[in-house]
């Protein structure tokens, strides 16, 4: 027994064939892939920390402020400790120059005293050598 009663179409008309061909032409070929749920990739790719997006930026701001405060406390003290007497804001080399000048003056005084001890006439009128001719210790 046929499931479908005979159609009123003429013999030879293939309604089943027509319908099958029609629906076959309508169905997408190839069949499309399943839709990609957008939220799925977001859920799997999202790191745990990004659940609180403000926390990271707040932590970075707090760390920056703390670093700034520590720097302002320690750095001036370090520069003050390293400066020699006589130095100024222009640099540390100024303290060395003062020391070198002081040693030069001492050498001149000693040389002058030695000349005086040797007696008048000896070395009289001799020019006082320029400080550059003395063998000054290296400051380096």
């Amino acid at each position, binding site marked *: 027994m046929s499931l479908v009663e005979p159609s009123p179409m*003429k013999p030879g008309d293939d309604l089943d064939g027509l319908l099958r061909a029609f629906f076959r032409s309508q169905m997408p070929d190839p069949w499309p892939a399943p839709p990609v749920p957008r939220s799925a990739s977001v859920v799997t790719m999202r790191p745990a920390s990004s659940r609180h997006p403000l926390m990271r930026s707040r932590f970075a701001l707090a760390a920056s402020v703390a670093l700034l405060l520590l720097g302002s406390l320690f750095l001036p003290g370090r520069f003050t400790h390293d400066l020699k007497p006589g130095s100024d804001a222009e640099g540390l080399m100024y303290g060395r120059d003062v020391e070198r000048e002081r040693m030069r003056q001492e050498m001149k005084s000693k040389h002058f005293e030695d000349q005086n001890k040797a007696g008048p006439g000896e070395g009289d009128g001799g020019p006082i050598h320029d400080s550059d001719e003395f063998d000054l210790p290296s400051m380096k």
Partner: protein
Amino acid sequence: MNNGTMKPTPPPADVHRTNFEILYERHSREVWALAYARWMNADTAMDIAQEAFLRLWKQWESGETILNPRAWLLRVARNLAEDYAKSAFRRNGTHPPQTMNGVQAHDPLPLESLEREETFAQLREVMEQLPKADREILTLRYALDHDTGEIAELLSINATAVHMRLSRARQRLAERLKATGVGQLP
């Protein structure tokens, strides 16, 4: 009517993904066929089918477990197909000219294919005049090649009702095709 959902612990995302793809492979054609029977438009039917599956995914993501995904998908697809009638998209008519008469454009188009497409367009027009139940059962029978038992299960009716509906649908279609002179493929 039971909506088929409850609230247990949801499985991991990768399991969801695998189940989703299996369900799509098994049931997407049925979902498409139901939507197609409503609108007689392959693209619209595919949009509705994909939207139904995306909603299934969202249900899973929200922690819902769907006990009968097939029934859930078919019900959602029916609702989406009905809602589509109310949407501004359909009211405003945004279909491109190539699909306004339901015939997809193909270039170049040989004469035989042209005649074939013309026959299909006439068949589509006739089917659009049939009751929705007729279109539905014809689509399940001829688009999906479902047998009586499968159609009965899908439509939640018994086999005798399937025979009767299918027979009457074919008879009505044949009468109208005869009246319009559409009988067989060129």
